Structures are given as structure tokens and as C-alpha cells.
């Protein structure tokens, strides 16, 4: 492998990891805002995602150039194709996070029972963060067994977010029946928490793509 090619692969890998971590950090800040009721942190969370799309485009162009110039094969080809799709997943996770922050930061001033929502909302958020961070860890892993272990951890977290979201949905529907005038606010909460569940879905998709990159097989949309 020519040094210049090795450097490009390493650079792409690091850039993908960096934008992925921006999404994780934005979610951690948003979670901190909710837990500490320091809602100014929502702005920090939003700021964390500035330039993410621009950086994603930069990575995609680096990948296209590397594919064209170095014609990678086997694992190198799988890795680059996976990264090209992963940047898209990260952008979608970022959009979901921004949407969550936007909606949730509005409803914190409403009369709804936030403590009741946070009972499952915070675990949901924690699982989504853990899913995305665990998926990103796979980028740094070379060992095949470890890749599969981390992949399963992501799937477990993603499954937890599904279950937690279902529980929140049930609770919120109950709350709406008791307090119909706040139904719009509750639906907004539900919609925003759905974004977190989507972040976990994107994490599962990233893990799936990294599994393909590391172990091979056939690529398929998660």
C-alpha cells in the first residue's frame, strides 16, 4: 500500500469518526440540559452540529477521489463504500438530533408533566447516545470478534430505544386523555422523542455498514 493511499484512508476514517462524535456530543449536551434543567445547554448542543453537513460533503468528495485514484479492492473497497453511506447516516442522525433539540427546547416551558416523560425519556436518550458511541467505536476496531461484539451491543441499545419509546408513547396517550388541552404539546414531545429513537436506528445502520466493511458479505440497507 502506497503511503499516500494509507494516509488518505486514515484521514477519511478519522474525519468520519469526528463527525459521528459531533452527533454523540450534541446529544450528550442535550441530555445534560434536560437532566440539569440548564436549558442554555441546548444552544451548545445545536452549535456542536454546525458545519457537520459541510464536513460530510468534504468526506464524500475525499472518498470519491480515493476510489477514482486508488481503485481499492476487497476490504479497502468495502470500507470506503461503507464510509460513503455512513456519512449519510450521520447526517440523518444529526438532522434528527437538531429536530429533537428544536422541539424539546420549546416544550420545556409548557405545562406538561416533564418529570413523568423524563422517567423513560432520559433512559431513551442515554440508550441512543450509547448506541451511536458504540457504533463509532467499531471504526477504530481491527479485531473481527470485537467488531461483532460491538455490533451486538449497538443492536441491544437500539432495541432498548424501541421498547422505551413504546412505553413513552403509552404514557403520553394516557396523559393526553387526562389533559386534552395539552395534547398538542404532548404530541410534540412524542415527536421529539421519536427523533432520538431514529438516532439509535441510524447507529444500528452504521454498525451494520461497519460489520460489512470489516467482515464482508453483502451490503444491505438496515
Amino acid at each position: 500500500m502506497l503511503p499516500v493511499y494509507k494516509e488518505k484512508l486514515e484521514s477519511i476514517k478519522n474525519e468520519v469518526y469526528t463527525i459521528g462524535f459531533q452527533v454523540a456530543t450534541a446529544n450528550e449536551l442535550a441530555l445534560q440540559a434536560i437532566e440539569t434543567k440548564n436549558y442554555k445547554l441546548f444552544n451548545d448542543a445545536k452549535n456542536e452540529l454546525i458545519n457537520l453537513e459541510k464536513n460530510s460533503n468534504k468526506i464524500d468528495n475525499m472518498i470519491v477521489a480515493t476510489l477514482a485514484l486508488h481503485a481499492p479492492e476487497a476490504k479497502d473497497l468495502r470500507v470506503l463504500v461503507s464510509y460513503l453511506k455512513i456519512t449519510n447516516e450521520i447526517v440523518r442522525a444529526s438532522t434528527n438530533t437538531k429536530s429533537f433539540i428544536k422541539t424539546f427546547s420549546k416544550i420545556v416551558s409548557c405545562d406538561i408533566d416533564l418529570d413523568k416523560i423524563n422517567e423513560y425519556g432520559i433512559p431513551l436518550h442515554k440508550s441512543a447516545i450509547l448506541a451511536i458511541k458504540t457504533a463509532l467505536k467499531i471504526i477504530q476496531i481491527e479485531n473481527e470478534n470485537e467488531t461483532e461484539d460491538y455490533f451486538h451491543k449497538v443492536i441491544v441499545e437500539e432495541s432498548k430505544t424501541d421498547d422505551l419509546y413504546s412505553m413513552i408513547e403509552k404514557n403520553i396517550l394516557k396523559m393526553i386523555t387526562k389533559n386534552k388541552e395539552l395534547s398538542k404539546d404532548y404530541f410534540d414531545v412524542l415527536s421529539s422523542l421519536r427523533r432520538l429513537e431514529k438516532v439509535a436506528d441510524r447507529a444500528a445502520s452504521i454498525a451494520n455498514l461497519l460489520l460489512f466493511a470489516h467482515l464482508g458479505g453483502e451490503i444491505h440497507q438496515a
Partner: protein
Amino acid sequence: MNVKIKTTNLNLWYAQNHALHDINLGLYENKITALIGASGCGKSTFLRCLNRMNDLVSSAIIKGTVVIDDKNIYDKDIDVVSVRKRIGMVFQQPNPFPKSIYENVSYAPIKHGIVKKGKACDELVEKSLIGAGIWEEVKDKLQAPGTSLSGGQQQRLCIARTIAVQPDVILMDEPTSALDPISTEKIEALMLELKKKYTIITVTHNMQQAARVADYTAFFHLGKLIEYDETETIFVNPKEKKTEDYITGRFG
């Protein structure tokens, strides 16, 4: 970025055959430029214009200028031998002299008066072999014939021989076409190292090689320069349809 070599309205005829048409090209210092195109497109002819190798072809008529460091190498007062000393060349087939490895490297520097036999010569031979990435493989058998080495080693010996005369520019005419993939990778890695000191112009039929190692790529077709740009642009977003067709294998 400095332009090391600039050709202006360069035309070449082999008797009646107009082989190069008005080639205007600026080749950058300390960069690798790849010349690509189908057989007979004029890329090797153009390469040989850069060190006046075509002077050796009796039917060749050259018009236009090739300016290297502000001096046209086709001016009448130019010493052709000194041009070829400054502009080294590596050929398709490794062609070591039928002499020892040591003599292959030391012969030209001694002839050019760069060094005399002795310690300085030994040091130059060692430095050149290190520069060509072959020292470790041959340091214990410097008196063995150059022809006893493998093809890839012979080509690196030829590169050592070229850099021993301390050129500014290295021309390479399909330097890896006779080599296996492992030797090819060694030469490509060496080219990337050498460009830190030298300006390299290489002719290649292997487009992936151009893509992998060249900073700039020039595409020739029927004696004309069709497109010249950064390699990434040529391989990702070529401006000319002919370039795109050639790169994507739609015509050869």
C-alpha cells in the same frame, strides 16, 4: 508552485508524419506529471523532446521551445550532454550496463567529473543506492554484475544510476511495465520519495499508476494535448469528453 519545464508550440515531425501538434505545457517542479494516452499518441515522443533524445532520430524535425529554468534547451549554444545530465531518464526495460553494481552507479559521475574514484565516489554510490531504495539489498555485493539482479532491482539500480549525476528532472518511460506488482509498488513508492528532490515526468499505460502517483496528468491523443490538469480532476471530473472516454475505457 514553480514551472520547471515549459513547452511552447512544440511540434515534431518524423519525416512527413506530424507526431506532435503545438504542445503548450508547464510542468511543475517537485511534482510527478503522468503522460497518458493510447499507443502512438505522442506521449513518449513528447517525453523524449524534454532531454533532446529525438535528436538521435535522423528524420525528426522539431519546432517550438522547451524552456527549462528559463533556458530553451533547443537553443544553438546548448550542450546536449549537459542537458541529458540535468534531465535523467529511466526506460521501460531495465538496462544496467554489463558492469558491477558499483560501476553502474559510479560510471557517469566519474565521466562527468562530479567525483573522482575513492571515498567521495563510494559515498556517492551509497547515497544514490539509498536514494533509489536498493542499498540494503545490494550493499554486500556491490561488485556483483548489475545484470545479476532481479528485474525490479535492476530498474531501481537504473534509477540510482540516474540520480547519481544529480539531475533536476527525471523522465520515466513506462518504468514499471516490465515489472511484477510487488516491484511496481516499490518503484511507485520510490517515485513519491524522489519527487521531494526531483521533478518527475512519467509515461504510463497503466492509468491506475498515473492515478496513484501523479500530481498532474496530461492526456495525449493523436499527437495533441487534449487535457492537462491535477490528476484528481482528470480522474474524477475530466473536462474533455475524449479524456473521459479514454479513462473509462471507451476507446484505446
